[in-house]
């Protein structure tokens, strides 16, 4: 059989946990092979083993039928294996070219790096696969989607025949995902083989040939994608039935909770990113903001939550002006915020989970009295939320850093929801999470709505927006350009609106 890569009976342990337990994956030449599993199932670990970052305790790896030892990434590179990591491995202050050639620099006779030559080569590679990357741009100046292409170029530059993509689409906008899929197809056309890790079953159905499922570190089996469907994949992965369409009753919105009027917000370079935005949210409804990344969503949320000063306009909560109040004041007025970047904003990773649970309330009774903390109250609350939100952690004393992304997210959601805010802002709440966790979080958001709270959901996942929202506000170029009802629209129409097209039920395209 012509397998390019075979990982046979791989076992990898970490202190106290078996991340991979006897897993087998075989990759055929020219195929896109999906790797599917819940958060923490062991997918990344398995791929890191293949890439030489980890050494397996047991098992065997074969490349083109030959048994190999991959003790470091150099060997993987030499064997033609390249990896696009879940967290990008890019040096931010460096240029695209510098990142790509790092470790394989072309040199002039004098020992100087031959940047010109490298840039030309990269331009050629980029053109060949339709990546349209600017070789001289700085990583910190380009979008996440671009950064991912740089990662792809990195592997191609090293002559990779096999590419591993670890959750490449989790951080991309729908447009970027479509483009990535195109890129993967062109890679296959050029004779490469791909292993793709993703939580999005639709993507698997769309591009993959076969799919290997892992559950809790164990290999469940490999299926031909043509012979399966989304529901079967989901239940293989979770070990039970999963419902995708979130059940919810009709919304019964009441009085107005959030009223944003003619808001202007500037970014750090003093450019207006929110430009005269109006937005209303009522109690008992979920408003989803659909939009392409970079149209001012982040700045809007930061302005509402007090993390960023707005430049003009007003924000009212329950008819009280909260414009430019400090984050603390905003929180106290009744706003909860599940931040987009959970590592940067959501958690103090070096604090125990317990102490993260009171991140905004530590100074209030009963968690402290006259500035003295009451650890018993804090940890009682933490235990309660850990139980209620099914946060999987050895204990409340465990550092937040040690938890998996999904569990970190559940802890944040528990914390924010538990304060019972009048307005709950959820930014990308399910990014990178497996279907089980997504289902759970969606249920929680809807529960809040049913309790009569207002929910503002920002997501780049149109599915999520369509499923969860009662009303969709389409954001483009710093403004809400349209309101639509999820049951009255479809992805194509939303896509066009998000791209700035004026068309609506009202009229034709521009």
């Amino acid at each position, binding site marked *: 059989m012509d397998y390019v890569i075979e990982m046979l009976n791989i076992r990898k342990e970490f202190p106290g946990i078996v991340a991979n337990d006897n897993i087998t994956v075989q990759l055929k030449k020219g195929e896109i092979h999906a790797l599917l599993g819940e958060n923490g199932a062991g997918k990344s670990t398995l791929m890191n083993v293949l890439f030489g970052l980890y050494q397996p305790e047991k098992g065997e790896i074969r490349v083109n039928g030959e048994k190999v030892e991959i003790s470091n990434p150099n060997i993987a590179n030499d064997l033609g294996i390249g990896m696009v990591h879940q967290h990008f491995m890019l040096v931010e202050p460096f240029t695209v070219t510098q990142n790509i050639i790092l470790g394989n620099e072309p040199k002039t006779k004098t020992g100087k790096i031959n940047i010109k030559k490298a840039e030309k080569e990269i331009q050629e590679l980029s053109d060949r696969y339709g990546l349209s990357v600017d070789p001289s741009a700085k990583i910190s100046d380009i979008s996440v989607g671009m950064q991912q292409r740089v990662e792809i170029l990195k592997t191609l530059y090293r002559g990779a025949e096999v590419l591993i993509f670890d959750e490449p689409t989790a951080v991309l906008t729908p447009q970027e995902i479509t483009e990535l899929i195109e890129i993967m197809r062109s890679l296959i056309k050029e004779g490469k083989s791909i292993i793709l890790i993703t939580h999005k079953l639709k993507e698997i159905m769309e591009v993959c040939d076969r799919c290997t499922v892992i559950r809790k570190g164990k290999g469940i089996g490999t299926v031909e994608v043509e012979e399966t469907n989304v529901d079967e994949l989901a239940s293989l992965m979770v070990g039970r039935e999963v419902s995708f369409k979130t059940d919810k009753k009709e919304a019964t919105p009441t009085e107005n909770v959030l009223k944003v009027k003619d808001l202007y917000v500037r970014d750090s370079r003093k450019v207006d990113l929110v430009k005269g935005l109006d937005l209303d949210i009522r109690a008992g409804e979920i408003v989803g903001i659909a939009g392409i990344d970079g149209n001012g969503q982040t700045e809007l949320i930061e302005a509402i939550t007090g993390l960023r000063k707005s430049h003009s306009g007003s924000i009212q909560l329950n008819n009280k002006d909260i414009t430019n109040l400090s984050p603390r004041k905003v929180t106290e007025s009744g706003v909860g915020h599940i931040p987009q970047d959970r590592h940067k904003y959501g958690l103090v990773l070096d604090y125990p989970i317990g102490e993260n649970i009171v991140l905004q309330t530590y100074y209030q009774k009963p968690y*402290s009295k006259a500035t003295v*903390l009451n650890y018993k109250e804090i940890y009682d609350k933490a235990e309660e939320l850990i139980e209620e939100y099914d946060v999987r952690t050895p204990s409340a004393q465990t550092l937040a850093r040690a938890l998996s992304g999904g569990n970190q997210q559940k802890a944040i959601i528990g914390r924010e929801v538990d304060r019972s805010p009048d307005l709950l802002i959820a930014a990308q709440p399910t990014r990178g999470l497996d279907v089980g966790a997504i289902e759970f979080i969606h249920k929680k958001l809807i529960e809040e709505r049913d309790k009569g709270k207002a929910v503002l959901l920002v997501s780049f996942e149109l599915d999520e927006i369509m499923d969860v929202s009662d009303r969709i506000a389409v954001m483009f170029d710093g403004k809400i350009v349209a309101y639509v009802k999820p049951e009255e629209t479809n992805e194509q129409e939303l896509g066009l609106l998000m791209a700035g097209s004026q068309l609506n039920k009202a009229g034709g395209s521009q």
Partner: protein
Amino acid sequence: MTSNNKFLSLLIPVISVILGLIAGAIIMLFSGYNPIDGYLALWRGAFGDAFTIGETIRRITPLILTGLAVAFAFRTGLFNIGAEGQVIVGWLAAVWVGLAVDAPMIIHLPLAVLAGGIAGGIWGFVPGLLKAKIGVHEVIVTIMMNYIALFITNEIIRSVLTDHATKTDRIPETASLSSEWLQTLTFYSRLHYGILIALFAAAVMWFLIQRTTIGYELKAVGFNQHASKYAGMNVSKNIILSMVIAGGFAGLAGAMEGLGTYGNISVMSGFTNLGFDGIAVALLGANNAFGVVLAAILFGVLKEGAGEMPTGAGVPTELVDIIIALIIFFVASSYIIRWVILRFKKEGK
């Protein structure tokens, strides 16, 4: 698992000290000294009689405080190399109040001690403010503030506190930490009540950091400024507060010298080194209050004991610096010691 960890955390410093002493012994052997004589002299120098014990405690006192000054800032993610300057201004301020104010002891002494703390706090405020508002790296500013403290203090002693003399008068009894009783108890060592203040300060730091919302905020800011801002904390305020409190501890160390050990202040031709030693003490004590106290004790004992080594055994006192440095290395490299211990344990099973 955790109790195991706690045990290791205690075991590692002990092993480090033993390794450091063994290394010191080897060096003595190689340079032709008798290590046993050397260490006996060290012991006599630190614990030989009531006098040396008194002096050892006296030496430990300011080290605890400068250790706290560095450790406290560290907990907020700041590196305070400025304890040295904060000690100097604290010393100056304490003596100044000691000399200028005329009041009964119950008012005078606390006032003078407080003045030292406040002066140190002000010296910490500047780098704190610049860090918080402009993002200027605190390491450079604190280094520069050390020199500024030294020169300004000398000038004030010469031009304000005295008429161009090198040292001020002694502070009156009402502002003095020293005590006849403690001195008689220890054959006229300079042991003074400052040790109580130092230990109390350590308890305050522990309580502040571990038990209060202030500590909770300071640590959070040290770990992650973004999340702290998200949580509604005032990041700038916390950075400044941390440097002010840290400076306050160092200022108190200066007050201990001014009100306790020396009873005055002299023109200094160089740094006191209390602040720089404080860095080592803080790090050796893992930046936690209890650890700082232990590290200061170790440091003080070794340094005080070292004085006896040249006369007692002919060994240069610098040997003790080498030993302390090695101990710090061993503690810092605890990763490897931990690894070795765990290895042994596994094999033992």
